[in-house]
């Protein structure tokens, strides 16, 4: 039976084989991301519940683990209300425009040493380009709804995302200077050799800038002025219901997982193990801890997702002018200074990027 499948697989032309493998990988990653999103909503409610001395969801299934599916079913069977004065086409297409870049960016994210859908040269640029495209959905949703609250939300979100993208891009300039490559797999490989080589050590200010800008980019608390429940009801998605709202929700969480994964890859060594180079572990039952694997990346993603929720439970919402000040007047100077420091380090041949000067 197995031989038959292998033989028929071999008989396919190489193009078809390639296409099938890629499709298969895409399906795996997409389902993985969607399941992660589903369970991170549960995780979020449990974490915030714990921080506020509540129980959190505990009714559906054991430990409330069925809650995400109950939510999905509820949203699926709800009616989609399209406001009569809205721009119908853009209103429907906006949630899709938000979700697609959030999922498409996963094409270049390596999950371990060998698994990546598209191993391209300019992976870092691709990620930057796609995260910057995601803002269209929010702006169009706000405009197409034809409501003052939604429009205000869209305006806020557009200004905020454009502002923080610059700081984010600059922080990544530091990363690519240190790794000497735009390929994300190469960036992870440049951090091999234990925790001391992770970029978080050498690029700590850039790590902070990237992570906080990432939180701002995903419109999460404390930067959630685009939604701002207490001020503009729900911002850009105030008129969305049912599946259309679910798509926005999915996109927001998919973006969070993406930002967590990117931060882990750029600054925490991606799939690399924190115990790498602990040679005294060799030969003991704990030897498996030293090898880099997907589980380390997953653990790092979970850590950052937890930080997202932790921040949401801890900080009050930023005031709008303070957000702008933080983005333009604090983060951009910090990144520029640190890139200059990095250049000096490279010139003096100190640190992991000593080979950069050429």
């Amino acid at each position, binding site marked *: 039976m197995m031989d038959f499948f292998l033989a028929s697989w071999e008989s396919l032309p190489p193009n078809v084989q390639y296409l099938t493998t890629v499709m298969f990988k895409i399906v795996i990653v997409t389902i993985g991301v969607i399941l992660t999103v589903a369970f991170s909503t549960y995780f979020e409610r449990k974490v915030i519940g714990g921080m506020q001395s509540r129980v959190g969801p505990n009714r559906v299934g054991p430990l409330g683990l069925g809650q995400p599916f109950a939510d999905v079913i509820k949203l699926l069977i709800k009616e989609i209300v399209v406001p009569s004065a809205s*721009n119908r086409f*853009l209103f429907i297409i906006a949630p899709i425009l938000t979700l697609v870049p959030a999922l498409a960016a996963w094409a270049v994210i390596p999950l371990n040493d060998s698994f990546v859908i598209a191993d*391209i*040269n*300019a992976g870092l*640029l*691709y990620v*930057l*380009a796609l995260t*910057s*495209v995601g*803002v*269209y959905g929010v*702006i*169009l949703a706000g*405009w197409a709804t034809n409501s003052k609250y939604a*429009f205000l939300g*869209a*305006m806020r979100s*557009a*200004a905020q*995302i*454009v502002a923080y*993208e610059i700081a984010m891009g600059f922080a990544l300039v530091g990363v690519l200077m240190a790794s000497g490559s*735009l390929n994300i797999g190469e960036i992870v490989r440049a951090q091999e050799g234990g925790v001391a080589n992770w970029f978080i050590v050498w690029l700590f200010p850039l790590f902070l800038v990237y992570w906080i800008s990432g939180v701002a980019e995903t419109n999460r608390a404390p930067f959630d002025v685009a939604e701002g429940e207490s001020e503009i009801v729900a911002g850009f998605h105030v008129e969305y219901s049912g599946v259309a709202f679910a798509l926005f929700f999915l996109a927001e969480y998919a973006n969070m997982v993406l930002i967590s994964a990117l931060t882990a890859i750029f600054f925490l060594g991606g799939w690399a193990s924190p115990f790498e180079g602990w040679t005294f572990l060799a030969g003991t039952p704990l030897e498996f801890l030293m090898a880099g694997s997907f589980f380390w990346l997953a653990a790092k993603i979970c850590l950052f997702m937890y930080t997202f929720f932790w921040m949401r439970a801890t900080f009050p919402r930023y005031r709008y*002018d*303070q957000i702008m*000040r933080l983005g333009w007047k604090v983060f951009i100077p910090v990144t520029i200074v640190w890139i200059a420091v990095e250049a000096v380090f490279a010139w003096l041949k100190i640190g992991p990027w000593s080979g950069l000067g050429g």
Partner: protein
Amino acid sequence: MIFQSVLFYLFSGVLLLAALGVVFFRNPVHSIMCLVLAFFQSAMLWMLIEAEFLAIVLVLVYVGAVMVLFLFVVMMLDVNLEIARRGLVRYAPLAAIIAVLMAAQLVQVIWLKGQESGLDGAFTPYPEGYNNTEALGAVLYTEYVYAFEIAAVVLLLAIVAAISLTMRKRPGLKVQNIAKQVAVRAKDRVRIVKMDAEKRS
């Protein structure tokens, strides 16, 4: 190769349709979305000739930043289309002349020059391991470094000019000093007084 050709004609066709849409849509927001689509298609065309840096930067800069600001402005403006369309007939001949001129120049550059220097339409793929970003950087920071830096200075000048044009100091305007607000600590604002409970007299 056939696959590439099919993709080329697909992207070019959508590009032309989107460009027509920019001109002919009545709603300016629709026009802008068509322009975004046109940028995406030209990025794809660049991708087909393995110029991935240019393609991604086109998306990153134009789609991700410039068009967002365009959209931002157009959504705020209440564009009166009747007034905008009034001059259509009057300006049409002028527009036609400019269009013909530009088309003639394009033919001159692409077709005639191409025949002179023996260029044909075929694209030969680069050898494996070719990195467009690296190749571009290698000439940009060595051979063309002065042109590159002059361009940077010109852009900086434009930023300074734009900011100085929009900055105005109004007398009597009250602004908040955010740095001072952020630096506030609880002990500057609240004084906690400890005192023993007093007996009711």
